[in-house]
């Protein structure tokens, strides 16, 4: 395997991805990410000099519209899906002491 993913990288990716992996999951992730990156490295066989990265397949313009409310007040319905609610607000765990 050409791409060796070390513990430090997996820790860092875990922080970026906001995932807490068990030791077993970390080992599996190191292996599978290394394999995937080896495979993705195949793209380096292609000379892409001068090729513009294509994010969208069509030549379309950004779409703007007026910022107008069209769906009315749905806060009550929306809050029904929340794991924690108090006084018409989302409840979150303590964020600072």
């Amino acid at each position, binding site marked *: 395997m050409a791409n060796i993913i070390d513990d430090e*990288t997996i820790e*860092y*990716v*875990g922080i*970026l*991805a*906001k*995932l*807490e*992996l068990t030791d077993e*999951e970390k080992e599996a*992730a190191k292996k*599978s*990410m290394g*394999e*995937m*990156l080896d*495979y*993705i*490295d*195949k*793209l*380096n*066989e*292609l000379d*892409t000099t001068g*090729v*513009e*990265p*294509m*994010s*969208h*397949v*069509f030549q*379309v313009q*950004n*779409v703007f*519209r007026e910022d107008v409310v069209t*769906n009315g007040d*749905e806060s009550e*319905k*929306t809050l*029904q*899906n*929340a*794991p*924690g609610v108090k006084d018409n607000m*989302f409840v*979150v*765990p*303590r*964020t600072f002491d």
Partner: protein
Amino acid sequence: MEKKELLSLSATALGKAIRTGETSAVEAMEAVLGQIRETESVYHCYVTIDEEAALKKAGQIQKKIQSGELTGPLAGVPVAIKDNLCTEGVRTTCSSKILENFVPTFSAEAVKNLEKAGAVMIGKTNMDEFAMGSTTETSYFGVTRNPRNPRHVPGGSSGGSAAAVAAEECFFALGSDTGGSIRQPASYCGVVGMKPTYGTVSRYGLVAYGSSLDQIGPLTKTVEDCAAVLEAIASHDLKDSTSIERKDTDFSAALIKDVKGMRIGIPRDYFGEGLDSEVKDAVLRAAELFRENGALVEEFDLSLVEYAIPTYYTIAAAEASSNLERFDGIKYGYRAPEAEGLHQMYKKTRSQGFGAEVKRRIMLGSFVLSSGYYDAYYLKALRVKAMIRKAFDDAFAKYDCILGPVAPTTAPGLGESLSDPMKMYLGDIYTISVNLAGLPAVSVPCGTDQNGLPIGLQLIGDCFQEKKLIQAAYTFEQIGKESR
């Protein structure tokens, strides 16, 4: 009408029978719910079914049909919806623990368009978790079985939708296709499935996976149904900034049995190593039928085919890692109990709420987007994407359609795929470049292997050329019917 006969009808044939009074929307819904009661314990196509609401809605629609308010081809026809399309008041899970109890406050635009057409929702179909997978085995709610042989997978990620159509547990279904997730299960289950040109169907209300690749489309019993459903769901929607205004959406007008003079290209690179010989033979027989009926069929080199999978998994994982950041245990969905502080809560919620395949792709996506690797991986993939698009542009300068297999094999056995993700990813080789290039493509049944498992034929068109695909697919289907 007798139940068995009723269930065997196509969606458009049922719509007609309802309009002429041979049957009713309620009778059709009762029949399909009866079928579900009989076979669902084996196939498990659905995650959520609300029988009472479905019957009530069918009754309301029947009145509107009788009063002449609803006259379209799909009025009164029961439909199954993939569980990553938001449905107001009906649980929408993406087959994930993290959304197990999520009830949307609005419906996806495609679902609304079907409601306007008078179609009646039966329930929500099973899928690979967040549409990440090719077998429907990564669902938190358990596997779906292939109705053609329950020891095999139905394909994925729209496996529940394809299986429901094949099992006559609905008359048609909606799926979504990011890398083949409509066409491949359609192929494995022996039904018709189409991925439209990117932007044809609004993605508003579709839970995003790879936004630049995702597109909603129909899974149906016939090509005629496929055209009717596409006609109903295609719309220009200001709520989706990638939605495209298309003038010509009269897809049913392309139901013409004629391929004389149609230029069809067969990419040699689609018939190399890894393609099962029975699949190859069935697809080449189909090509021969086109030739016999006046199409100009020739082989050509598409090129870059082997680079599509690494390009796709880089882009899809990157977009997934960004799109799935919203699942944080605050506004909706699962929240891990007993987490210390906000940051721990995020991490625990996501680690407990997502399955292994979803985590794998989020990790890869986070990595390829991270500082220091962004150019080498993500931008590189976007450059190769441009090259792949160019290869298709060159091909469509010469051909009306590209013809090939949908998948290298027929449906694998249950449990055979998940142990080796790389092998599973390789199975997407013929479908994913279509998503990278934004093209329309359709899967139509073209035979079975020696075990009786269906084989799918894929027809790929240039952007906005769905009508050519429908005409070619319809001709092929009609010729097949006549020769039987």
